[in-house]
């Protein structure tokens, strides 16, 4: 039996292809939106994976260090390290900031880590070029996505850092590339005040009678000296010994150290369930709107194509064509439109996804789900046209 749908498509292939291109671009946008969401999730997971931590020790009653600011003393690390089940513990600071590169601002996440401890939690997992941080000051390891190259200089606050190593896929939960600098520099950068503010603070301290007593020489100098040092970090990242129970260890730390401790699962819940939840809903809304618009376009196209064939449908019915055959013809055309549109959309999304500033992850399972959704959408969208076709009176062919 002749494929009426196929013949009709071949007969007007130009119109069909152009229509498919329009639909395909819309599907491409939809797939890309899904990819943006997947990219956000992947960025969050990569952040946790690449941190190499099993536990995150942060300030009490905060969701730090990624979702909220957290501040704990840097000597907490020693206490944490002494806890049973702990293999390694490392101080870490995070600072989201803008840096200049080639005359352009680049958004990066500056991570402060202990130099000379590759493999410790919080350190870049592997390098694509150069070496790890070895000196305590003015060196940096940058993610390739930041655009920096070996030997480049990065200006962060008042100090400049030379890029000595490059890494890959080390990003913040927001997808910004990370730049690793020595912990001491990072602590200073995070809490550093400008000169005017320091002078103002010293003046206020000197004016405070409880800190500048006439009978206690050296007290004021001591207080001022303590104000120039930042003993805080955002978190202590902990790697557990093989076989150690993260939940039990975390509970032990919470009880004895009076700090908040998150396991990997809890931190993932914070990142995915809280930090990017609003963005996810935003994208979900856009996906729904795009799906509805796509369905409306398919419905309109198929409906218009069918209206243009009313006389032919009447003739087909008059000469004895089953309604089922005509319904099949319309539905096959709708599905063919969806298949071609999806292929164009998938190719388009694959082509333009890498050009997005943030990571767009196009997963095969999303493509499969999208394909199924497009086919279902096309079938439903063709129902209006099918309704019209089924109602065509064969007598219309006679006049």
């Amino acid at each position: 039996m002749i494929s009426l749908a196929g013949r009709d498509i071949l007969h007007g292939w130009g119109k069909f292809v152009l229509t498919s291109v329009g639909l395909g671009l819309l599907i491409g946008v939809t797939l890309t939106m899904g990819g943006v969401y997947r990219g956000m999730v992947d960025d969050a997971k990569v952040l946790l994976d690449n941190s190499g931590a099993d536990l995150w020790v942060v300030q009490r009653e905060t969701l730090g260090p990624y979702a909220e600011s957290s501040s704990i003393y840097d000597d907490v690390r020693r206490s944490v390290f002494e806890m049973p089940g702990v293999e390694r513990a490392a101080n870490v600071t995070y600072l989201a900031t803008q840096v200049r590169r080639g005359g352009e601002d680049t958004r990066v996440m500056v991570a402060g880590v202990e130099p000379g401890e590759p493999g410790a939690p919080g350190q870049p997992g592997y390098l694509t070029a150069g070496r790890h941080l070895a000196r305590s000051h003015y060196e940096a390891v940058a993610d390739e996505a930041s655009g920096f190259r070996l030997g480049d200089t990065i200006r962060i606050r008042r100090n400049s850092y030379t890029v000595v190593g490059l890494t890959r896929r080390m990003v913040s939960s927001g997808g910004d590339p990370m730049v690793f600098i020595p912990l001491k520099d990072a602590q200073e950068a995070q809490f550093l005040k400008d000169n005017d503010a320091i002078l103002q603070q010293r003046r206020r301290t000197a004016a405070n009678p409880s800190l500048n007593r006439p009978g206690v020489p050296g007290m004021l100098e001591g207080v001022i000296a303590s104000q120039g040092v930042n003993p805080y970090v955002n978190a202590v990242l902990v790697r557990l010994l093989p076989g150690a129970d993260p939940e039990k260890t975390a509970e032990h730390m919470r009880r004895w150290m009076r700090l908040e401790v998150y396991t990997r699962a809890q931190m993932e819940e914070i990142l995915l369930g809280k930090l990017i939840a609003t963005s996810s809903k935003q994208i979900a809304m856009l996906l729904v709107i795009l799906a509805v618009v796509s369905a409306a376009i398919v419905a309109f196209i198929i409906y218009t194509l069918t209206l243009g064939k009313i006389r032919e449908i009447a003739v087909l019915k008059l000469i004895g064509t089953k309604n089922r055959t005509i319904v099949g013809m319309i539905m096959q055309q709708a599905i063919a439109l969806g298949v071609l549109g999806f292929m164009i959309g998938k190719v388009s999304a694959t082509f333009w996804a890498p050009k997005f500033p943030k990571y767009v992850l196009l997963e095969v399972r999303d493509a499969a789900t999208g394909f199924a959704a497009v086919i279902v959408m096309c079938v439903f969208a063709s129902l209006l046209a099918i309704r019209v076709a089924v109602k065509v009176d064969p007598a219309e062919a006679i006049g």
Partner: protein
Amino acid sequence: MSGIRIEALRKRYGTGDMAVDALKGVDMEVAPGEVVGLIGPSGSGKSTLLKCLGAVIEPTGGKMVLGGSTIYEDGWKISDLRTLRRDNIGFIFQAPYLIPFLDALDNVALLPMLSGHSDADSRKRAMELLEALDVAHRAAAMPSQLSGGEQQRVSIARALANHPPVILADEPTAPLDSERALSVVRILHSMAQQYETAIIVVTHDEKIIPTFRRIYRIRDGKTVEEAGEGRSTAGEIAE
């Protein structure tokens, strides 16, 4: 005798005060191989009669016998009118109304295919008909590439594709000039005899009316049979 026979066929549109009797008891009989003309002024009931004969609308009363079987007698006697139309009635329209996305051969072959014949058999049968109608050389052409006369011959081939006992032709020569119109009628006479098909031609075309041996004139919903000039064979028309 097979062919088609109708007795006291009636058709009423609407009910009550709004009722209109389009057919008020039409009698007609067309034998296999015969071509008759059905003429009448606009609004006389020609289209209604054609639709009743084509099993497209249901008459209000009367009897229709098609190919020896009663298909209507105060109600349809056949439940599947679609199959009845497909296998027993051929249609030729004023405009050819070929399926624009099928070539000439498949326009003709579609009907046998719909009846369940294999693609190869259907195309073989379609090609035979196109050869008989002298358009086989245009078998691969799309309808838009055919001339008006060629399109009409393909539509005649389509009407004959399932070898139906009756063909209903609705103003088949209307868009054609005299020469082509007579050519089409010649073909209809030839095909009627060759395939033992009864052909009813609804027409206003004065050029072709003399070609019918019998004419049914319809007026106010009733038919009157008249003798035509009887030049119903291909040879006579050619003279």
